[in-house]
């Protein structure tokens, strides 16, 4: 630029800048102004280069005016840019829209089966007591399923109608108590009868039933066995109450009624007030207001003796919780069959 650097010229340039700025209509116009005025070879840089030729006495005033021009150009260009950005953002926000009432598209969470939830909760409740979780076969020998458990050959439970017999000469276990027999034998034969024996085991059990809404050929049990010196019926009832209260809440009522099982003596049936009718009686609880959720008792002395444990020295208790029934009660399901229907519309709702 060849214009002589003077205060008048700077003022004229300032006016020119204002004229150009007034004409800016779109973001690309402001880019042209930035190129002309603020770039390396732009007007402002050139003016500063000419400052060295200004007479000394005018220099302060010219420099001040030049700085003022530079500052004005920079700030007004920036303001214009901001104005364009704001405008563009405003326009974008006015135009853009998402309808969040439309259906979601995520894959969604899966779920865990109600019976598994019950099994996992019971396992967690039992862990502080030191129970070791073990598994056992479902295709079982008659010895572990019956003979070892004080169920003689003529017992009704061994009838062909109640028990599945396989072509391999086995039975399908009718209860998880068969695991108890295996663990007692294992402890007796291979671990020097070390006590305490504390085990838990869960899984499927089988009954040869004509199936309908209330009879299943396959259902689930959760077995627990504790053998040690000095265990009492009181301990057993307390532990069952603890499990049920932890599972269902402290307000849930727990009762014990007499039962008969060949492998326990005394035998008891723990029951809880029905979740469906709150104890007033409904089809789910057979009108009783109570639902029996387990079979329990002190291990029969013949069972302990079968594996070489002296029943006069050692006592033990065991119980088999009906996890299907516990799950039905936990999720307010009126029929056990709903637990096994595998209807994903229901199972997905389980949290």
């Amino acid at each position, binding site marked *: 630029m060849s214009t002589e650097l003077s205060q008048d010229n700077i003022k004229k340039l300032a006016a020119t800048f204002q004229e150009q700025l007034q004409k800016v209509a779109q973001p690309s116009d402001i880019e042209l102004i930035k190129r002309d005025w603020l770039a390396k070879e732009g007007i402002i840089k050139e003016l500063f280069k000419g400052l060295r030729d200004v007479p000394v006495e005018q220099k302060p005033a010219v420099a001040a005016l030049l700085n003022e021009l530079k500052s004005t150009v920079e700030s007004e260009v920036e303001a214009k840019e901001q104005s364009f950005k704001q405008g563009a953002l405003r326009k974008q926000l006015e135009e853009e829209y998402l309808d969040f009432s439309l259906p979601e598209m995520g894959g969604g969470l899966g779920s865990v089966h109600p019976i598994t939830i019950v099994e996992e909760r019971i396992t967690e409740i039992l862990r502080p007591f030191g129970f070791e979780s073990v598994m056992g076969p479902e295709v079982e020998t008659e010895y572990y399923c019956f003979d070892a458990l004080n169920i003689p050959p003529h017992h009704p439970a061994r009838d062909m109608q109640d028990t*599945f017999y396989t072509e391999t000469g086995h039975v399908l276990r009718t209860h998880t108590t068969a695991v108890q027999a295996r663990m007692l034998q294992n402890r007796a034969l291979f671990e020097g009868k070390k006590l305490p024996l504390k085990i838990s085991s869960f899984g499927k059990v089988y009954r040869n039933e004509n199936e309908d809404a209330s009879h299943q050929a396959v259902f689930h049990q959760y077995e627990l066995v504790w053998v040690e010196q000095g265990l009492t019926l009181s301990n057993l009832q307390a532990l069952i109450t603890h499990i049920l209260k932890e599972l269902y809440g402290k307000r849930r009522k727990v009762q014990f009624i007499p039962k008969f099982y060949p492998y326990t003596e005394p035998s008891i049936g723990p029951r809880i007030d029905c979740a469906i009718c709150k104890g007033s009686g409904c089809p789910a609880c057979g009108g009783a207001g109570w639902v029996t959720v387990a079979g329990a008792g002190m291990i029969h002395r013949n069972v302990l003796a079968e594996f070489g444990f002296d029943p006069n020295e050692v006592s033990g208790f065991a119980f088999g919780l009906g996890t299907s029934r516990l799950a039905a009660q936990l999720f307010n399901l009126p029929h056990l069959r709903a637990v096994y229907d595998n209807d994903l519309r229901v199972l997905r709702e389980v949290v």
Partner: protein
Amino acid sequence: MKFHVRMIEKLLELPECSIESAGTSSLRHTLDDIGLEVKGVEANSDVGVVFTIETLANRGDHLYAIGVAREISARTLAQISIPTVAATLSDRKSSVLVRRVTEKCSRYALLEMSLPSPMPLRNDVAVYIDEPGKRHAIVDLLNYVQMEFGQPMHAFDASKVDGEIVIDCATKVETVEALDGKTYQVPEGSILIRDRKKILAVAGVIGCANSMVTSDTTKVCIEAAVFDPVSVRKTARAMGLSTDASYAFERGVDPEGIVPALKRLVYLALGSAGAAKDVSGAHVIGYTYVEASPPEKRKIRVALSYFRQQLHLPRLEELEVVTRFKNLGYGVEVASVGKDRELTLLVPSWRLYDVAGIDDVLEDIARSVGFNRVRQELPALQYDAPAHNPIETIQLTARPALRGSGFVEVMTRGFYSASEVALLDSLSKGTAARHVAVKNSLEASNSHMKLTNIVSLARILGANLKRGVVAPKIYDYTRVFAVPDGVVSDEPRQRELLEYSYEHDVLTLASAGRWSDSEWRKVESLEEHARLFKGTIGQVIKSLGAVFSVSKSEDHFLHPGMQASIKMGRNVVGVLGVIHPTIREACELRVPAMYAELDLRLVSKFMSKQELYELSDFPAVWRDVTLMIEPREQAGRVVRLIREGQAEHLKEVQIADDFTKSDESFRRVTYRIVFQSRERTLKSDEVDGAMTKILSELKEKHGILLAQ
């Protein structure tokens, strides 16, 4: 059994129970609490309140009114009034001889009576009888006495009995026509009642038509006996028949109950006249009783402190314990032994079947005190909780990955039907023989234990698609079963106790339809679905701290061209693929579906504790190469081959693209081969050198060429 409240009320004072509130009455709760669980309630002004109760399987004495009354009196401490009975039976022997040949009948009584004609049924008896008047009154009376005293009895028309009664066992299968008009096959070994010419009754089960009492009968032989419970049960099961009598004998009848029951019968039939002739001429003609030996006098000694300790009731009073035992029918003597008191309990004859030791009498006292009165004391906690077993650990660890991937846990049964087994056998010959077959299933669907879970899951997918579930994704931790190769010992070796030969734990997964529930999303292609499915398996295995690869497989239940085995290390631990169209069709599954099965015991061997490693500070360098791959070759195999070459600084190999040009008979698969050093930035010529080595090995050892 039916429990008539009015009948028990005659014996003792009962807890509150009105017709209006029977279902919630305190009597109902008392019955539940003493082991007579109420399963049904009827109440009307004609019969009063009738409970249907479920009795304990070992308690024959709970099947009759006096037995129930004893149990209630032990709880409430009310006194029982035993019903009035005739003073004597008869001094004369019956004219019909009795011969007890088998030990399966421990005692047998025969009472000969002449009956009034016509014989009316007392109103106070008729009210408890179903359809009174349908049978001869003496038969209704026998049934009534069984309801009161528990002794099953049977009446023969004396004019049809030839000379003597013989109690023996069948030496062959016999055919009889019973009172119900039906013909039965009676198995060998059954106890039979015969006269000189014919079988009169199948002992303890049912009488025969040939000696039936009819309206013309004027003289009867009343049988009251004790038969072996096991023998009666076997016979009744074999005949497919359960009568009130067989039900009672199977649970054990009172060996000292015959005489009181007959005396009650005589009292009710003849009134106080008893053995003397009444005005109609009815009277007892004679009475014969035979027995093997008198019932055992079983005694049990137990310390009072034992009850207190077991029930955690330190203040349980001796008087209370003694009274409860006496009301249950025990003879009780008490003596001091040291600082303790010792009870000597004489077991009542009707309890000889189930009371053998101190545990049994503990149960009696606990039941009569009430299990809900036991003071509960929680055992001590133990803070070194043991680890989960390996299978359970996998289940717990992998569940979040499955849930996060949108999979829903289902529970399948253990069975397949014969037609399902045939379906599998049609795809893989010899499969049927590997199934564990069930001998006696009542349901056709339960005839075999399942060898694989594929049919079960395919059916669940099909059913849920029909229900309108658009993206069914399911998993099931289950057991599958197979007849093992070779001989399996059931000897209690430790391995067999803790493991087992006929079954193994598996994780099975399946999916069909869309991957996501949203119908707004574009439907995935089968390939995309399969890769998402494989991704879920990857997440599951990663959650276990392990890695997997795939290789070719030949699973006959999967689509032959769309399957792979799942490998961990060098071991095959499972299989994944598209369900075979034949299975899909049989399971009414109309769209292609994925299935995977992982053997959990094998997987557990590769689980490791997850460890993080320090990242390299130096940049990674990669090269993309496109190789020519056969159409039915697994692209992943090349990844494995490159990794096995162990080129220097090789970090990872990824499949970056897979495409086929229309005019080419091979696939072009692009591999991204990544190099990185932990010590320095790699130079370009180092990486090029490694690449040359990799490509040369692929070409020379495996015939895999670079695409042009």
